């Protein structure tokens, strides 16, 4: 059964245990400059604090709610689409969607074309521009832990239950229950966005104000190109056959040395 994570934004206290857990489990390097940034600093950056060595980050948004100023902490990482555009755009099979949910990447298959980065509707992927042999980096949803029936590193350390790991279907039902109970915004971000994602977000403040891409299509992105991309081999082979036929026809009856 496909796994997922539910992010209950109002429950987050911004302790950033999750991003430290990500660093520890994935052995990501610390950057002196990034380390000193606060959640509010990151929210002002165009990239939501995601870098090749920062697969997840907490961003603080200061908002108005019922006439009061409130702060909300939002976790950013790969959404792990059900039908990921990065996987379909990768011709060298460096990306894969596992049946358990994670979308994973293998650098040994990567040719470095970065089509995946252009395909991603949430602008999550980061390229290691500074490296001699660069790769694309992003959250792998702790694929080895998930495969071993463990939860992801980040969810395992959350002290408030703001991020919950579980079966996607069950989490979706839980999300809808919480929306009703707490009077949240009536939308589970990730239920239908980009054809559905493994990570689901619920919130009591509008998603638009917290830098969510709310205008993203609900159709799976690969479905836009799937139809004609499927015809590519036939068109290629057919075109070659036609040209070969024309060549044979044009050269019929000619002497080889003419």
């Amino acid at each position, binding site marked *: 059964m496909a796994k997922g994570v539910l992010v209950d934004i*109002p429950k987050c*206290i911004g*302790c950033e245990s999750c991003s*430290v857990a990500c660093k520890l489990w994935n*052995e990501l390097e*610390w950057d002196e400059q990034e380390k000193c940034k606060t959640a509010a600093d990151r929210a002002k950056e165009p990239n939501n604090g995601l870098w090749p060595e920062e697969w997840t980050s907490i961003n603080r948004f200061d908002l108005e709610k019922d006439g*009061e100023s409130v702060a909300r902490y939002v976790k950013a990482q790969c959404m792990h689409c059900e039908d990921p555009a990065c996987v379909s755009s990768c011709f060298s099979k460096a990306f894969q969607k596992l049946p358990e949910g994670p979308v994973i990447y*293998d650098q040994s298959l990567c040719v470095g074309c970065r089509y995946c980065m252009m395909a991603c509707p949430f602008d999550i992927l980061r390229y290691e521009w500074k490296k001699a042999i660069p790769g694309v980096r992003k959250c*792998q949803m702790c694929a080895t832990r998930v495969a071993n029936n463990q939860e992801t590193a980040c969810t395992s350390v959350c002290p*408030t239950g703001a991020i919950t790991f579980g079966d996607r279907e069950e989490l979706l039902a839980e999300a809808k229950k919480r929306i009703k109970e707490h009077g949240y915004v009536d939308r589970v971000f990730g239920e239908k966005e980009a054809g559905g994602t493994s990570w689901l977000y619920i919130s009591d403040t509008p998603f638009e104000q917290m830098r969510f891409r709310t205008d993203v299509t609900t159709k799976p992105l690969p479905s836009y190109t799937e139809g004609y991309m499927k015809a590519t081999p036939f068109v290629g082979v057919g075109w070659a056959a036609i040209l070969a036929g024309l060549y044979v026809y044009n050269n019929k009856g000619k002497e080889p040395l003419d």
Partner: protein
Amino acid sequence: MASKAGQVKNLSRRSFLKFVGGTAGLVGISLNLTGCGDPATADEAIGGNGWMPTQYNAPGNWPTSVRGRVPIDPENPAIVRDDQKCILCGQCIEVCERIQSVFGNYELPIKKEFVCVNCGQCIQWCPSGAISERDDVNKVFKALADPNVTVVVQTAPATRIGLGEEFGMPVGTNVQGKQVAALRKLGFDVVFDTNFTADLTIMEEGTELVKRVTGELHHPIPQMTSCCPGWVKFVEYFYPELIPNLSSAKSPQQMEGALIKTYFAEKKEVDPKKIFSVSIMPCTAKKFECQRPEMNSASKELNDSNVSPDVDVVLTTRELARMIKRAGIDFASLPEEEYDKLMGTGTGAGVIFGTTGGVMEAAVRSAYFLITGQQPPAALWNLTPVRGMQGVKEAAVNIPGVGDVKVAVISGLANARKVMDQMKAGNAPWAFMEIMACPGGCEYGGGQPRASSPPSDEDRNRRAASLYNIDAKSKLRNSHDNPEIKQIYADFLTAPMSEKAEELLHTHYVSRADDFIPKKSEENKLF
């Protein structure tokens, strides 16, 4: 013997292939045996099912038991955290939630800020040193380098029995004289002792208590101490309805700060604008306290907005040790020196402010004097029921003319929470309560040297014993006997709780109940 050189061995194509085949076979068998040469199957080949990136094949450096951590605001005036050192062991949550009852005692979502009383116990519990005090050492070095500035420093009762540990001395070593010498060597112009204002606090707080009991002052009983800024902030957050019970007297640090820029400046004819007041504290919450907008009495009193806050910078014991190490001072070989006069004399009653029960013991001695006009009996110099590391201690002191006065001593905010809930229910038989945020009091405060072992009552007892030892050896053991206290009331303040004393030595508190949503009930607990 004929040389074999030049002999040509006939090698047929058949024997060559046999040789090569045999070697390859051997290599193949040995690879198979060692498990290195598994033949690639569809499932295991790269790109097949069950495919994993190579970066995941080795286990990570993941601690065995991880439980998250407390949130720390990047703007927190007292506490900072280095994420790179954090191992998510959950010790900070443990102490903040169970011992201090702060974390988890508010509803989510948070409103404006994280609830934090700045007590710094998380620093003491953090096993990897990720959490520490906000470092203000450079501000002090800058002031010391400025020849136009008079840098005045005060040292809290508990730093003298903590500082030595930073230099490899046994737990609880009294380094009062060496500390003074080190401060002079660092370039501080005047070295005062917070014990002096601890005595002054007793005079003010004691007078206030007597006035409350006699009904002269219309404030509720029991009176609660207000020396501990962590405790004060805790009341402001969780029990705003009990704010009237808090003594209006400032903490000794803030009294000393206010007097440095008024009394000291007047006596020694120093421009208050050019005084930089530093305090060395065993505490991180003091960093928050000195930044409170109310703690600006000197500027108000002198009617000069150019006078900076009463205490400009608070350094923890650890920061002072860092300063001494950075200046290359050989601490162990320093001579013993004396505090400067005017505000540098403290009594035994002042020094025991540094441990739980100490304020109470000092208060009882002087309350006896204030009520009866006579010196307290020797039994009050060793008030054993309020000594020790129990979280809640009670005692009844017989004072002639009043009868048995019931007092309570509490350390650790979770203990305080239980007693406060009891008080709200109307069950408070005490006249006076001493409450310290940190278990054991200031001697194990958030700014004291970190021990290599987790916080323990053994270390707390050793530090407390050292403070009681200083008290036992003091010539003066009652706050009201301090000659400098008599002098300041004669020369400057006139009397306890006089108009001037109210102006400089007393303060008010603000409710912080609007900053967060308190936890509704235990069942409703979200985390």
